[in-house]
C-alpha cells in the first residue's frame, strides 16, 4: 500500500493536522495485508516539520516498524524531519 503524503497537503507543519491525518487514514490501513509493505511517498510535499510527522509517522512506525518504507524524501525539510525522528532506513 502506498500513502501519498501530498494528499494531506503540501505544507505539513502542525500537530493537530498530523493527528487528524493519522485518524483519517485509519480506515484505509484496515485493508493492509499482514505481509504487505506500507510505502510512504513524499513526492509533491513542499514543507514537512517534526510536529506533523510525529503525529502521523511515529505511530505508523511504532505499529509497522520494518514494514514501513519511505520514498521520494529528497525535499530538505522532509529529509531533516525524518532524520530528527530517526525514521530513515539507515537510522533504523
Amino acid at each position, binding site marked *: 500500500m502506498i500513502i501519498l503524503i501530498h494528499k494531506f497537503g503540501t*505544507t505539513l*507543519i*502542525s*500537530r*493537530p*493536522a498530523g493527528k487528524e491525518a493519522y485518524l483519517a487514514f485509519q480506515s484505509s490501513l484496515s485493508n493492509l495485508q499482514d505481509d504487505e509493505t506500507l510505502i510512504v511517498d513524499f513526492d509533491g510535499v*513542499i*514543507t*514537512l*516539520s*517534526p*510536529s506533523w510527522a*510525529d503525529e502521523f509517522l*511515529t505511530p505508523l512506525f511504532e505499529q509497522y516498524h520494518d514494514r514501513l518504507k519511505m520514498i521520494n524524501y529528497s*525535499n*530538505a*525539510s*522532509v529529509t*531533516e*524531519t525524518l532524520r*530528527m*525522528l530517526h525514521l530513515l532506513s539507515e537510522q533504523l
Partner: protein
Amino acid sequence: MLGVSIDTLRRWDRGGKLRAIRNGKTGHRYFADSDVQLYLKGPMIIARQWAFDDEVRSLDPRFHCRTRDIFQARLETLQNKLADSLGIELASLITAITGEIGNNSFDHNLGNWPDELGIFFSNTQNNEIVLADRGRGILLTLSRVDTSLKNHSDALIAAFSRQISGRPSEGRGNGLKFVRRVVTTRPINLVFQTGDAVVELNQHKTDIDVKIVSESIRGCYAVISY
C-alpha cells in the same frame, strides 16, 4: 513625518512599499496610520511592543494570528514567496522552522493563554521573520514535566537540546531541537528569547550560549534571518 518627497511616496505606492488608499473623486492618496507606523517602526519593534509590555495593546490584524489556521495560511503565502526568491530547499526549511516555532506557541498555550490569544507573525523587507507570543513562556511550560528547571536559561537550554515536551502525555518534543539543527547547518540566523534568556544560533554559533538580558518577556520572541 516620513521625511520623503511626494514623488517618493507616489513611487512607494506604485512599487508596493507603502500602499496608498485612493480617493475616487479627487485621486488624492491617503496613507493608513497602521501602514505609516509599520514603515516607521518596522515589524520587530511592533512585535516587541506587543509581546513585551505588561498591558495588552491592540495589534494590527495583519500581524496577529489569533488561531493556528490563520498562521498556517499566512505561512504558506510566505513559503511561496521564499520559494521564488531562495529556491525550494531553503524555503522548505525556513518554512518548517517558522512553523515549529509558531505552532509551539499554540501547542503550549492552548487553553492557558494568560491574556491575548495567538501569535505575532510577520516578515520584513530585510529577509527577517518575526514571531512573538504573550504566552506562558518555556520555563513555566517545561517545569511541569521537569521540576529541576530553575530559571529561563535552564529552560531554553533544555528546549533546544533535549527531547522534552511540556505536554506530559506526548513524551515528545523535537521541535526546537529540529530548529537548532537546521539553523546551525544552513545560512540562517535565529535569535530566540523567553523570559530574560536569549540565545543566538547559526552556522558559527552552534552551542547554546545563553545571554541574560534586562528586558524580560513572559512568552517567546524569535527573529529568523536568512
